[in-house]
């Protein structure tokens, strides 16, 4: 009952399999982190130097940001795991509704007619 909810545990109930699974998960997370760092580096280099033509810089770095966005959500925030159907629904809806919002506020301010 209620009393036990504030009590620490002596040990973990994790089985050996679960432990191995967790260690593997940890390695994946660290790999994801390394990947994110390199994406960030790439974005900064692409902007700071002239490696890719200036016209492509914006779509390129926005694309990198989107990849990082998914890495964060699916790996660091565990959206890829099971039992995350409703969180996924909320985030997908949020992103889906954010898109027209951003586009409208950026473009449809009456300065250029569409």
């Amino acid at each position: 009952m209620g009393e036990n909810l504030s009590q620490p545990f002596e040990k973990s109930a994790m089985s050996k399999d679960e432990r191995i699974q967790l260690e593997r998960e940890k390695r994946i997370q660290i790999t994801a982190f390394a990947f994110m760092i390199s994406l960030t580096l790439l974005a900064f280099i692409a902007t700071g130097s002239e490696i890719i033509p200036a016209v492509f810089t914006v779509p390129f770095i926005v694309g990198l940001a989107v990849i990082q966005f998914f890495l964060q959500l699916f790996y660091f925030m565990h959206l890829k795991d099971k039992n995350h159907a409703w969180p996924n629904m909320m985030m997908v809806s949020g992103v889906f509704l954010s898109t027209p919002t951003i586009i409208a506020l950026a473009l449809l301010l009456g300065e250029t007619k569409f």
Partner: protein
Amino acid sequence: MADNYANTADKSVLWDWLTTVDHKKIAIMYLIAGTLFFVKAGVMALFMRIQLMRPEMEFITGQTFNELITMHGTIMLFLAATPLIFAFMNFAVPLQIGARDVAFPFVNALGFWIFFFGGLLLSVSWFFGGGPDAGWTSYVPLASREHGGLGIDFYVLGLQVSGIGTLVSGINFIVTIINMRAPGMTMMRLPLFVWTTLVVSILIVFAFTPLAAGLALLMLDRIFGGQFFIPGMDGNVVLWQHIFWIFGHPEVYILVLPAFGIISEVIPAFSRKRLFGYSAMVFATLVIAFLGFMVWVHHMFTVGIGPVANSIFAIATMAIAVPTGIKIFNWLFTMWGGKLTFNTAMLCASSFVPTFVLGGVTGVMLAMAPVDHLYHDTYFVVAHFHYIIIGGIVLGLFAALFYWYPKMFGHKLNEALGKWMFWLFYIGFHLTFFVQHILGLIGMQRRIYTYLEGQGMATMNMISTIGTFIMAFAVVLLVFNVVYSAYKSERITERDPWDARTLEWATNTPVPEYNFAQTPQVRSLDPWFYEKVHGDGTMKPAEPLDDIHMPNGSILPFMIGLGLFIGGFGFIMMNMENPIVPPLLVVILGAVLTFGSMGLRSIKEDHGYNIPLERIKKIEKEAS
């Protein structure tokens, strides 16, 4: 922790209501607060109609008229319709899904108190030089720091605070419906009112956050000199319109979808048939919610965004008529061939259908971008949205009140008075608003405080005002009915006075604080009706009778709301001529109160209390 059980019994009444986290009590608080705001805004409408009764009336000044239109719209949408809907959601949803309470009882109370203090903050504007006067949409530059008075600051901060309350309540409902359902209550067995509550709560989460952002921008503009809306500093006024309507259009669906849900509960109950096309209804709700986010620019057709953008949004708007049509036909087919009982609840619910169709048809007319240039900002628009809001939401709320009243208060409302109320209201409503369509088409502008003789508007305005008085009389009759029934109406002890279909009617009347002594096992859609027909007329229990764990009450929600009120007032004081105390001090006081209470809540672990088994047995025995 059975020893501290006594803590609900020996509280004073006032302390009990200030600290309660019981969803049924919070529902009643929402109902009372919403009714008070409803009456207040209704009286404002009466004043406006008196002013417009004859040409060149001098009942109130143009400035007062502007303040009245603004407050009427703002209060009706944010502080009357929303809490009244929340009242029924709070009461019915946990019962309908077979839960003991909502997922976060504390947050539920928090939502109420924050909403309440936000409404209070908006309302005190009358004592500080007059209410906001830029219309409920508060368009800049009218509302910017260059042109808007102190009233706008009350609008911004009041809505910001009450919006937080609405947002946290929305989150609470989503989690409740997803996590707290009784065994067997699958998503496709949820009553339609629960479905619409879920969808509306999702809309709240996605619509009230842009509103919070927009209000923050307006506040930064007005109080801290931000340049978002000042064209001379490269700001843009259309920005506000976009953000407002990104929130504002879903807001319409936030209000009307629960009414759809109520109608979908009341019509089957009094047609003695299951809802026709249940899955189509669920699907239509989802489609309406989705499309509701993709159409906001139809409020801005005349801004001059461009023909392609206007066309896209016009088509999306017209598409909403399709799922709404599905719903209309499903209600008609539910009634078709049913054994109809026309009591007050059913009268309101069934007359909702044709009224709503009228409002919907004018909606499609307004969606056509080219002709909208003629309709825009005329009384045609006023007539259109009042057909939706009164013909849709208010009739739905009346139906809900009469339908759930016996469960909430233990006695029915008087039927004779109720029917008088309905007919007077219905006739008064059409008298008021039908002629406004024509007034709009002959060119009467919205938000205009008077008109001239010889413009052909005098007769119709007079009719409209007479209708308003009939409606007002009907509302007085309803209030009288509530008082009369409280004294004269027969007490109800049976579970199910309407012979209805859903789980809330399986509980004892009055509903004990734990709702269900044993969590019910749900075996079908309309589970209570299923057990009455196929079972022995009682719900099958899904767990043995045992101690019941309940959350403790807390004063912290009240304190957090009070803190936000004080903090918000402090921000407004920054724009006052000579504040008596330094505004920053007031803001800090509010912040300390709010964040201090939040911290206290976080630090103190509160696992609630148990109602012992003997006591549950005693309560259950008394009730049966």
